[in-house]
């Protein structure tokens, strides 16, 4: 075997290797065939849309919680008839003003949708113009009491039956605090510019989150309304001796 033959074989081998490498490398550089087309590109699961603000306010009948907790009170006295407002504290208890249930022979309650609710017994507080009424039938909805009194400038919403007519929702702001001008309440009361009328007494005053911040009990000639603050309400509700059976005229 001569050296020339060896070199020739080397050359052929080298050429073969180069050709194979070029083929493999070239094939690697070629575009790959496409993946099969799926029958559908619709994802099997999609993230649920976030609930809108309105959706959070949905209720079984479309009325919001502020309306559903309101109660109309008819005080049938001895030769007198008056109306007031109140709101549910729990399923069988409502809160209103003392003067709304005073001198009554019979109390008649009705809800936002006109349902009658039987009243069982009324109790009044001596240190504030507040009263609680136990009901026979369950009340539709009850709000949450705010932890603290609102600050000046905070928004306030009043839900009640002004003049004993339709249920209304009015808005305003807390404009300050003052010593009770009627001397019906111990301590200071809230002053708001939310419009109220006779018959609105006992209405719930709500904050922007729908929590109770007080109970409307009076108004003045300047259109300002006076509210028993929720701190007073909480204090009296926590004191079992704060409420006594309401005197009846009958």
């Amino acid at each position, binding site marked *: 075997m001569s050296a020339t033959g060896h070199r020739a074989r080397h050359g052929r081998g080298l050429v073969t290797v180069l050709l194979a490498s070029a083929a493999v490398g070239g094939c690697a550089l070629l*575009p790959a065939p496409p993946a099969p*087309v799926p029958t559908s590109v619709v994802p099997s699961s999609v993230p649920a849309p976030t609930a809108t603000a309105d959706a959070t306010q949905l209720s079984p009948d479309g009325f919001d919680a502020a309306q559903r907790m309101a109660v109309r009170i008819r005080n049938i006295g001895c030769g007198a008839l008056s109306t007031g407002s109140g709101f549910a504290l729990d399923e069988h208890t409502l809160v209103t003003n003392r003067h709304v249930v005073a001198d009554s022979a019979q109390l008649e309650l009705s809800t936002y949708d006109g349902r009658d609710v039987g009243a069982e017994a009324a109790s009044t507080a001596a240190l504030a113009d507040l009263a609680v009424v136990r009901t026979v039938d369950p009340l539709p909805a009850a709000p949450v009491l705010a932890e603290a009194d609102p600050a000046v400038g905070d928004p306030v919403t009043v839900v009640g039956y002004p003049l004993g007519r339709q249920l209304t929702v009015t808005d305003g702001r807390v404009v300050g605090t003052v010593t009770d001008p009627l001397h019906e309440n111990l301590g200071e009361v809230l002053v708001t510019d939310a419009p109220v009328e006779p018959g609105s007494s006992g209405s719930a005053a709500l904050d922007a989150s729908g929590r109770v911040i007080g109970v409307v009990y009076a108004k003045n000639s300047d259109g300002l309304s006076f509210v028993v603050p929720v701190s007073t309400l909480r204090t009296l509700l926590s004191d079992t001796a704060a409420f006594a059976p309401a005197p009846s005229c009958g």
Partner: protein
Amino acid sequence: MTGPIGPAPSFGPQQGPAAPTSPVPAAAGWAPGAAGPTAAPPEPARSPGRPRRAVVLLTLALVGVLVAAGLVGARLWTTTQQWERTAADWEALARSHGDQLAQTQAELEATTGDLQATREQLATAQTRITELADEKAQLGDTTAAQQQLADYQARVSQAAGNVATALANCVDGQETLIGYLEDASRWDAADLARFRAEVERVCGAATEANAALQRELTR
């Protein structure tokens, strides 16, 4: 050393550069110091098959390149065909989803319209419920007020009736007492006094009944 570099002088007889040199046996005509045509220097031996092998190798390489190019071309053609089919499938899928999207959007629009109408109906129903609740409450107030009025009228009527009865009793008693007094000698004085006291009591009751009536009337 600085002159131009020319052809190197040859040491043998001048020969044309293009003159072929026929193979000559390495030892033929060579002798030290001898001059003649056999004095050319020896050349390295060449393999007569080397150019042919180069040609063969080049040919093989060319064929290999052509084959590779063919394979690559075939592969590219096949791939292109596959991509075309895939693109067509994707387009069909996209059009299908587009149709579905259009259908869904149309349904959404219709549903949104229905929802809006339902909301309006709900708002109307809520307003009506509130109105009905108010009407019922007002009727209840009216009924309660009328009941209070009826109770009042009943109390007034009762008081008036009591007054009338008491007055009638009073009048009867006084008439009887007058009759007794017209012939007082026939009756025991103590009995007359007792009867007079009784008449005064009955008339006092009439006065009280009248006062009660007046109180009811002023309520």
